[in-house]
């Protein structure tokens, strides 16, 4: 799909892999304009007044759901939240039927989080409402990728040529996949870091570098993005334990001291302090972890707005813009 720069003509956002650099830049530019709204006293604009948004979270989430909810409210949309246990999925209704019912209630936007890769795309292809992917299995988490890129662009002034290391459980990470898609399209140099079981060689086909030691990338990174490491039952055959992981891949104070002065430290949350990141590092110099959360709101406002048919903004002074 080719589109002119600064345009967005899609009703859905399912995967960053589906979109051009120009389209994704359009979202980032529009988010820049919306970020100003959040900084004002009156944090609300009427862009989606009269529209209904359903937060359909089949997999648990707090941060992303609240971020979408606030984004929708700031755009004056009406918001309904549905969790897996409150939906009819538990009674055996199919995902498609549940979504069709939401559409029959005239939902305009459906934000879905689901454990199955491709579930957002599956719905988007079959219903008329806008579908926004808030995480589908290990596939993509497009708004997280966008907010990470937005934060990098905001702090470093550019994305092209920026060296980004993404560290952790890449194999099972939708955050990593969305970051890889967006950052490589916008010209960043991405290196994936983790043990070979969590960063298999197949990732090299995605145009990224691979390293199996965090110490290799410390001095050569402009951004370190640390993913939450999990060691639940299904991960036990992938690495021996959290202790060994921290020893080999944790961003300790000692390692952080080797980072370049302007290196950004990012984390999509929720953090395991003392595991993938030492507590002081998370709160220290270079950490933009809370900026990511703030920026997530602006990015999600932009996505909801654009997928509802709103006209894109180019990069303009945030405070003079009233969408």
């Amino acid at each position, binding site marked *: 799909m080719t589109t002119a720069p600064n345009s967005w003509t899609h009703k859905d956002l399912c995967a960053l892999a589906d979109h051009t650099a120009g389209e994704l830049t359009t979202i980032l530019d529009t988010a820049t304009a919306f970020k100003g709204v959040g900084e004002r006293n009156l944090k609300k604009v009427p862009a989606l007044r009269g529209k209904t948004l359903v937060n359909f979270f089949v997999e648990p989430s707090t941060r992303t759901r609240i971020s979408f909810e606030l984004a929708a409210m700031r755009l004056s949309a009406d918001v309904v939240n549905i969790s897996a246990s409150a939906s009819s999925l538990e009674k055996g209704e199919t995902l498609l039927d549940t979504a069709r019912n939401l559409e029959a209630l005239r939902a305009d936007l459906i934000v879905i989080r689901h454990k199955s890769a491709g579930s957002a795309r*599956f719905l988007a292809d079959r219903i008329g409402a806008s579908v926004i992917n808030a995480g589908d*299995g*290990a596939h993509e988490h497009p708004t997280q990728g966008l907010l990470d890129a937005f934060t990098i662009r905001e702090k470093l002034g550019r994305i092209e040529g920026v060296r980004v290391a993404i560290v952790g459980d890449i194999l099972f990470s939708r955050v990593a996949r969305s970051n890889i898609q967006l950052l490589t399209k916008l010209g960043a140099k991405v290196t994936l870091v983790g043990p070979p079981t969590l960063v298999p060689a*197949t990732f090299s*086909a995605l145009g990224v570098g691979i390293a199996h030691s965090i110490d290799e990338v410390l001095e050569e990174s402009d951004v370190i993005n640390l993913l939450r490491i999990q060691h639940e039952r299904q991960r036990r055959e992938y690495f021996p334990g959290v202790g060994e992981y921290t020893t080999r891949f944790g961003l300790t104070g000692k390692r952080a001291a080797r980072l370049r002065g302007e290196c950004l430290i990012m984390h999509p949350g929720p953090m395991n302090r003392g595991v993938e990141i030492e507590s002081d590092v998370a709160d220290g110099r270079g950490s933009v972890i809370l900026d990511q959360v703030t920026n997530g709101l602006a990015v999600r406002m932009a996505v909801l707005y654009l997928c509802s048919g709103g006209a894109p903004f180019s990069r303009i002074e945030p405070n003079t813009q009233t969408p």
Partner: protein
Amino acid sequence: MTEALHIKGGRVIDPANGVDGIRDLFVEKGVLVDRKPAGAAVIDATGRVVTPGLIDIHVHFREPGQSHKETIASGSRCAASGGFTSVVCMPNTSPVADNPATISWIQERAASTALVNVFCTGAITRGLAGEEMAPIGALANAGVVALTDDGHCVQNHGVMRRAVEYARQFGLPVMDHCQEATLSADGVMNEGEWSTRLGLPGWPALAEDLIVARNILLAEETGHPIHCQHISSARSVRLLRDARRRGIPVTAEACPHHISLTDEGLRTFDANFKVNPPLRTKADIDEIIAGIADGTISILASDHAPHAPYEKEVELDRAPFGMLGLETELPVFLEILLHQRKAVTLPQIITMLTANPARLLRLDRGTLSLGAPADITLIDPDHAWTYDRNDSPSLSRNTPFHGFPLRGRALTTIVGGRVVWDLETGFPC
């Protein structure tokens, strides 16, 4: 009603008898005869290829138990319209075909509803559970032509070894769906670049290769034939090539989708591309085609696996594996192997769809010998057409080949001297 036939002027390819030339065939009372019977109806086969009725040793007709997907009647119509006169049904029905009563039920159902010959396989283990041996002797007496736990793979090597040893006394070949379960785990597609891109759990080729290697060792150890079903991986082909050169009684089959489609087909999460074993890479396709060309893979089959639309219309990881195959089988093999790759000759393809499967399963089919049942297929190997799944006689629609332009198809299918399907006139009933 069978009638006397005079099939006139076609290019007869009968690999079992080493025949390839223009000649006439005569049919009387359901068998092939050597002279023109009185009052024989003439079928003009000029410019056509006339072959023994095609045999597919790997189909799922879903009866008993899952007749919303397919029935023996509807499945047999898919077979007939694809040029197949004999099919071999897999035992993963409900109940499982692991007992003589179920085999008898299928045979009776086929006798009363099927347009083509339906042969049964029996399960290797009870309930396809991979633990206890099924009553193999009773299954042999009931007339099964092979044993398989298809859809499942016997994981326990001790159980598999004993089953192969036991089957030997009945001369029943053992067919295996090669999939090591701890490696394939919850995989839904080939492990590789596309599973990485799509974030879907991978089903690595290694899981197939390991069981192919196991089966080669067991075939060598026991001296009894083991047939590896639907080979999907390049390394499995190499293992089999080496084993066959050493004279080990192991055979293998390939399916149309494994030589025509790659895992990239899943890029839009279309469940019609979800199949087990999964679609793999171009390198795998190339090696499978090389294996077909050099005889490593000697049998072609469809793995016709119907699923209802509502069953496939779900999240990809929840959708069942499998795709329709019988109608597009011959056309895809002709399109890819003959027209595009020029990897094999037409007689070689016919051999892999007639004489070779008949020899493996000891069927009295796949030949145009005098006195043999008059199962005959007329083929135009160049017929250009586009497959439309909405025209399918199947009860299901799960095919990745919808809208595919293809060259070659069956024109007329004759079972026991009776025309059961014709491209112009359709089914007789």
